[in-house]
Every structure is written in C-alpha cells, then in structure tokens.
C-alpha cells in the first residue's frame, strides 16, 4: 500500500487528452537549465575549486559576515514593513471606490518599471541631510541616507509592488458573505478582520513577503546610492561581490555569492513549504 503510493508520487503525471505535455516539459527543462541551472552550477563549480578550508576562511571574514547581515537584515525588515503597508494599500484599492483609484493602482507598478539607479538617486536626494525630508529629520537627530535605514527605505520602494500584486487578486476573491457571516455571529469589525479575513490572506501575504524579501536581498542599483557603503555598517553583500571582482579576487567574490545563494535558497524553501502546507490544509486553489 505504502509502496504503491510512493511509486505513484514519483511517476511523471500522465498526459491528459490535452496534447503537448512532453514538448512543454522539454522546453521548460531546457530553458531552466540554460537560464538558471548552468550559471548557478558554474558558480558552485568555481566555488568548489577554492577548497573547503579556504572557502570557510573567506566566509568567516568579518567584513563578509557584516555585509551579509546588512543584506539579509535590511531585506527582511523591508519585506516585513511592505507586508503591513502593502496589505493596507491592496485593501484600499480592492475595497473602496474613489477618485484617482486607477492612478494609485498604476503607481504601484512604478518601482517595477523605474531603473533602480534612478530610484536610488531620487531617494538619496530626498533623504540626504539637505534633502526635503532629510532636512526635517536632521534636527530630530535622525539620519536616513547613508545608513542601514536608508537601505531599508530603498528596499521598501522596490519591494512594494510584489506584496500588493500578490495580495490584491486574493483579496478580490474574498466573499462578502464570509464577512457578513462573521457579523451575524456577533463579531465586531476588528474581530472580523483579524480572525477571519487576515488568516485567509496569509498564504498570499507569505508569497508577497518572500518575493519582496528575495528582491531585497538581490537589490543593488538603488541601494548603493543611498547606503553610503561604509564597510561593516552599510555595505551590502552584492556590493562587496563587485568590490572583490574589481580587486580581481574571484575566489572571494564567488564565496560570497555561494553563501548568498545557499541562504536565499534555504529561506525560500522554508517559506514555500509553509505555503504548500497551508494550501493543502485550507484547500486554496484546489
């Protein structure tokens, strides 16, 4: 019985009456191999040439560790903030009809389209001590540009559409009747949102979070302008890779890249498993 099930699980799904399964799978695999697998394999092959002991030595460099902390920490924080405000923004766009709604809806996509360097320069100009907002914050002793805070702001900017665009369609599907059911059972508006609506959105929010987080970890263009790039403080790992490359230190660059790859892959894997689990449980998309 158990063996039979295991066997079935590993079988390639039988093609249906719809033709093209073999072709489609073939194209998919070749494409993934060309675009994703070969470059990544090259990276790993390069890293394995370094040798384990020197790889560990490179990885243990305090500057590398600091850069990784900055990269993953700021990306995580930015993704969290994006989740909160992205969900509110999506809610407003889905639930209310008001003048200019379509314009705001279109604006959400701007960070996708804008060259990230432009975004970085614009944000720096605004948040620098002599910029519009920076000048207001300066007397309060708050420095944004050229600190990790600045990095977080840049990552919030680039990550926002990911959260809004993943949550929005699921929100549109929320059945009015579910809210009404909660109300007839005596739930207040707050209880309805916190106990009924938000848990239902959790899988979509999680997807949005992981996308925004992944984008944040890899972001380069906008961050380098606003970060100030001080080693050990506001230097991100992607920048450190570029610096190592410019020093012709290919081994160092590869080591950082591989570590980033491993951490990112592990985190996305965990998030995806949580999602698959909740999907199975609640029957979303089933």
């Amino acid at each position: 019985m158990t063996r039979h099930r295991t066997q079935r699980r590993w079988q390639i799904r039988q093609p249906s009456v719809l033709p093209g399964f073999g072709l489609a799978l073939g194209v998919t695999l070749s494409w993934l191999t060309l675009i994703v697998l070969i470059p990544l394999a090259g990276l790993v092959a390069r890293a394995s040439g370094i040798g384990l002991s020197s790889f560990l030595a490179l990885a243990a460099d305090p500057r590398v560790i600091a850069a990784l902390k900055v990269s993953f920490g700021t990306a995580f924080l930015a993704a969290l903030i994006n989740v909160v405000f992205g969900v509110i923004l999506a809610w407003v766009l889905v639930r209310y009809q008001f003048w200019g709604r379509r314009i705001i809806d279109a604006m959400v996509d701007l960070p996708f389209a804008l060259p990230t360097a432009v975004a970085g320069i614009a944000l720096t100009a605004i948040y620098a001590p002599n910029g519009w907002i920076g000048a207001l914050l300066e007397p309060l002793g708050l420095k944004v540009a050229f600190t990790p805070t600045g990095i977080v702001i840049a990552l919030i900017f680039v990550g926002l559409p990911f959260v809004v665009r993943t949550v929005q369609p699921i929100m549109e599907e929320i059945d009015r009747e579910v809210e009404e059911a909660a109300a007839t059972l005596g739930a207040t508006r707050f209880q309805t949102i916190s106990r009924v609506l938000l848990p239902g959105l959790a899988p979509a929010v999680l997807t949005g979070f992981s996308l925004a987080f992944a984008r944040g970890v890899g972001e380069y263009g906008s961050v380098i302008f606003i970060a100030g790039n001080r080693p050990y403080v506001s230097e991100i790992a992607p920048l450190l890779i570029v610096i190592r490359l410019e020093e012709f230190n290919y081994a160092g660059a590869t080591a950082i890249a591989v570590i980033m790859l491993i951490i990112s892959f592990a985190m996305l894997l965990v998030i995806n498993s949580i999602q698959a689990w909740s999907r199975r449980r609640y029957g979303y998309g089933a």
Partner: protein
Amino acid sequence: MEVRVKNIVKEFARFPALENVSLDIRSGELIALLGPSGSGKTTLLRLIAGLETPTTGQIFFGDEDASQKTVQQRNIGFVFQHYALFRHMTVLENVSFGLKVRSGDRRPPADEIRRRALELLDLVQLSGLETRYPAQLSGGQRQRVALARAMAVEPNVLLLDEPFGALDAQVRRELRKWLRDIHDHTGHTTVFVTHDQEEALELADRVVVMSKGKIEQVGTADEIYDTPASPFVYGFIGESNVLPVRIEGGEIWFEDRPIGVKAEGHADGDGRLYFRPHDIEMLEGCGGCLAGIVTASRRVAGTRHVEVSTGASNASVEIELPIDRGNVDGSRLAFRPKKWTLFR
C-alpha cells in the same frame, strides 16, 4: 421569538426592492419566503437580519424594536446559499466562532464552548468530523456545518438564504427532511428563502408568496394551492390554465358560447378564468363546454398531460387525463372546469 415586519420599504438607488411589506412571523414557526428572482425575498430576509437597513419601516423581535440595532446586536443565525464557512478554521472552530467572539462575561468558558459546539455537531450528524477543514467536506456537509454555526449563538431567529440552492437534487431532498426534523427538535423561529415551490410547500408551516417587492399571499400549503389570492399566485404555484372569458347573465362564456359553468354573484363583463389541469370533468357530447383538438400529449407519471387547442383563437389549454383513456392524439375532446377562479 416572534418577528414582526411593519410597513417596510426598501429602495436601492431609487429602485424599489420592497414596497410597504408587513408580515407577522409566529414564535417557533418555520416559514418560507417564496418567489421568482427579483421578488425581494432575499432583501426581506437580509433586512430581518440587519444586513440591510430599511428605507422606512420597522422590524420587531418580540416587543423590541430591532430596526435600531446592528446585525451584531440582533443575535440572529444566518445561513448563506454558498455556506460562507471560514475556510482556515476547522469544523469545530467554525461552530464555536460565534461564542468565542463574545466579550467579557457573555462569553462562556472554553470547555463550555467546546461542549456546546460538539453537541451541535452531533445534532447535525457530523460527529467525528470536527477536526476537518471545510475544503475536506461535501456540499451537504458544509451546509450542515453552516447551520450548526448559526445555531450555536442561540439565535432569536434563524434565517436561511436558499440554503439548499447549491446542492444537487438528492442531497437537497435529504436535507429538507432533516431540516424539518431539526426545527421540530429545537423550535427556533425559522425563515427560509427559496425559489423552489416544492421545497416551500413541503417544508414550511406557512408560505409567503412574493412578487415584485410585494407580498401576494401568506398561508399554509393548502391555502396557497387551493385558494390562490391573485393571478400571480395561481400562475406561480403549480400548473394552471388561463382563458379570457366573458360573464353574461350569471354564465361564463368563452368566445361565442357558454362553457356550462355558472358564475352567480359575478357582475357581467370580461374576466380571466383560471383552473388547474386536473380540476376538470370530461364530457360526452357538448351542451356548454370547452372543446378542441388534441395537439400534443405526454405521459407524466400516473397521468397523461394533454394539450388541447380550443376555440376560434386556438387558445392552448393543458388538461390531465387518466391513463386508461388511451392515446387521444388528434381526437376531439369536450370538458369543463370543475374548480376555477375568476379574476377580473
């Protein structure tokens, strides 16, 4: 609890959905709101629930004016056509929800909530499924969870919006009988909306027939079927024939001849004659009758439904004949209504 609807008017963007509707629902009654789509039956149900606010008019729960209360304060149970279960919660969590969200001292202790929820799941015959999620249940089971959830708050009145509308015919019949049993067992005042007349007539103590935002008739299944109060009810409930007729000297005339039916007490003039296909007597030879050629016939269970084209205008009338009359296609039949109603 007794529910009184008093002079309710509801307009949606100037379009009247309900026009001055009044209705008394007795305590413990199972009552059906029946009508075609757009008749305002669901709107009336939602007004009682507090999911809509009336343009004018009032709703009383017992002696209390409920119109001023929010849906949360009214303490009603509402069952939706598409169940509206909370899909991230187990069956048990769904049923307990109404008690868990109560504040302060109105909330029973956790083990009491659990006990009551399990008791209700037992009542709706879902014991053993309390840890399942809605996605793992069949449609009929989901609707039973929805009912248990609605009953958990000990509602003043139980409101069901086309509760069996999304289910297939067989499950529907089962649940219908089962809902009647539950109602007799718990005694909740229950209002349900349906467009299925069979469901309404079979299940409800009284049926409210609605059309175009108005109540046409309120009565038991017998009253509604045997003495329809309006042409709409006559036409909507069961099968019926309509013929344009004339009253002359206390007799009913169809076109150029009397049909052998006395209409004493009716003033002369035009009218419309309504009668059911089975409320007829067959005649041999015609001294005052309806007569015509059979244009079509079909066997329906124990009777034969025969379409007769009658009069100069070829008005089509459907009558029911016993099977032993054999095939009557193309032959000429004479008959007259035994029971009928005249609307002017």
